[in-house]
């Protein structure tokens, strides 16, 4: 099958574009350390409140400057709803759900993940600027979905 010259040029440009996109993605991972949520363990939905660390939701300093926020997502609130950390802290969110699927997005950051019953979601981020960041559930979780939010308060 003969492919026309113009067609070949166009296909070449397409491949170049896609290769460029791929390079940019690889660079964002390798160079800028962008990470996606991965497998962080399972948990039995019925036993969440009896299983560490979810038996005590809250914010903990795990090492100097490093914090862990243990959060339970449920219809229609995050528990705890407010997370306080000092500026510059590296915060790891450890989240699971006790009912349905929820979303977990921290505004103006790249923290954006799903919370799925039976699964543990783990995402980290360093907060270098003081301020209040909304945490919003962005997956439909029943009629109270649009009221489900919390916040990260970073104080300077």
């Amino acid at each position, binding site marked *: 099958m003969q492919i026309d010259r113009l067609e070949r040029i166009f296909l070449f440009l*397409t491949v170049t574009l896609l290769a460029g996109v791929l390079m940019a993605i690889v660079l964002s991972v390798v160079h800028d350390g962008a990470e*996606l949520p991965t*497998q962080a363990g399972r948990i039995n939905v019925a036993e969440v409140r009896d299983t560490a660390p979810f038996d005590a939701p809250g914010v903990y300093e795990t090492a100097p400057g490093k914090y862990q926020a243990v959060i339970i997502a449920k219809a229609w609130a995050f528990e705890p709803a407010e997370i306080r950390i000092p500026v510059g802290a590296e915060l790891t969110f450890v989240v699971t759900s006790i009912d349905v699927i929820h*979303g977990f997005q921290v505004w103006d950051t*790249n923290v954006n993940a799903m919370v799925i019953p039976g699964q543990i979601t783990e995402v980290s981020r360093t907060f270098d600027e003081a301020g209040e960041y909304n945490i919003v559930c962005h997956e439909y979780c029943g009629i109270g979905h649009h009221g489900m939010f919390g916040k990260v308060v970073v104080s300077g």
Partner: protein
Amino acid sequence: MTTDTRIDIALSEVELSQRRWIKWHLYLGFVGLLIGTLMGVLQALERLDVNLYDEVGLESYYQGLTLHGVTMALVFTFAFANAFLSLTVIRGFGRPLASHALLVGSFVTAAAGVVMAAIAMLLNQATVLYTLYAPLQATPLFYIGAVLLVISTWMTSVNQLLTLKAWRKKHPGERIPLLSYISIMTFLMWDIASVGLAVSVLGFLLPWAFGWVGGTDPLFTRTLFWFTGHPIVYFWLLPVYVSWYMMAPARASGKLFSDGVVRGVFILFLLLSTPVGLHHQFTDPGVHAHLKFIHGLLTLGVFFPSMVTAFTLVAAFENGGKRRGGKGLIGWIPKLPWGDAIWTGQVLAMLGFTLGGATGLINASYTVNVVVHNTAFIPGHFHLTVGTATALSIMAISYWMVPHLTGRRLFSNRLALAQVWMWFGGVLMFSRGLMAAGIDNQPRRIPVNSAPYAQDSWTSYEVLTGIGGIIMTISAFLFFYIIIRTAMNKVAATSDEMSFEISETIKGAEESPAILDRLGLWFVAAVALVLLAYVPVLLSQGLNLDSPGFILF
């Protein structure tokens, strides 16, 4: 290559009867579009702080949104695919469908599915949105309705294949006509893709909703949903690609470049549509990041055939514009049939799709995805794809298809032209508003003005989304008006208006390799790729049926 490009007006009894069923199936899709539009305008008005859900007797915004998603994304699109790609197979092979029973069966199954799902949704017993994520639990009726919709498409596919078999008997060694080829390939792709949803519903959700099993696995069923949920976008798109390739160029006097390239494009869709579903789960826990990356990589690959399509179509239109006397680099553009609503509507849909494709590349990019995932950016994106590339094309194609099937003349080409331009203008505003809101942190799937965290900076986007959505709604009502007036038109369509003209190719089938027609081979290759891409995903997740159902609506 010379093909006969006119349909024989003297139709056989069988064919007349088949066309009637195809017509009813098309109309079933219009019912979906109508319900979807009524819900759509409520969503648009909500953006303008006009909340009418109580007034119209709906329990919540989400009940409306479930109706909108299901009727638009599953009913309207599936019915069109069933109807149109039955008609194209008849035309392509120049013979009726092999099985009348399957044709009727497909319609009846789909109609039953629509009725069941509609009852469940209207009773507020299935407010789980069209993604039906467990462990939100709907009434069994809803899941049965959804499965029937899928089964109706399988019936169409089997009928196409039986027709191919019957045709081959009489035409041994001949190349499959291009029109039939791409119609059949579309359904073969979907046959593989739809397995995920079917297994999820039949194997897990339905027994669980009936209470036969106590729990389900939210991640596993979600993965099965997205097994179907990405390729479903090609099941929305490829039926209109069939028209873009085979009808739009002919209306502009243009010829397609090469038969082989078109076949190749559809083979790539068959191969690459399904093994990419994890790009909808980039932000999911419980799915390994490496597997996400592999699916992300293949996703870039499936962008390729759409780029080839863009090239081929523009080349065909240039060819047409030049044959109509246009000269120079862009002089051919004004010579195109801009006065023809059927052609113009499809071309506007293509233009919308270039934006939809570009934003799709953003969503699909492994790490950029986190910026937009589940924000209002996403509905902004897909109203340009399924909401325009598909929906606007279907409307434009209907302006040909309804006269073709009923013998009644299109009520008003000028009104139709106004309708398609309105949709195009409306959706540009609408999607612009949603995308901007999404980048400004607005989540999707919320009644914006009821959210406690709503921002003042969102107001200007809401105006765009609201007004754009209202313009789209008016356009949709204009569409229904034109279609009803057409179906009831006392004036008969001319044989020209009723004809089914298809694009010729400059390089015909005789120049494309015979291996392209080995459908079985490509199907097996596609299945193998899907297994490679999904077996590790499913195995690494395991199955944990420990989530009880929740009815939170």
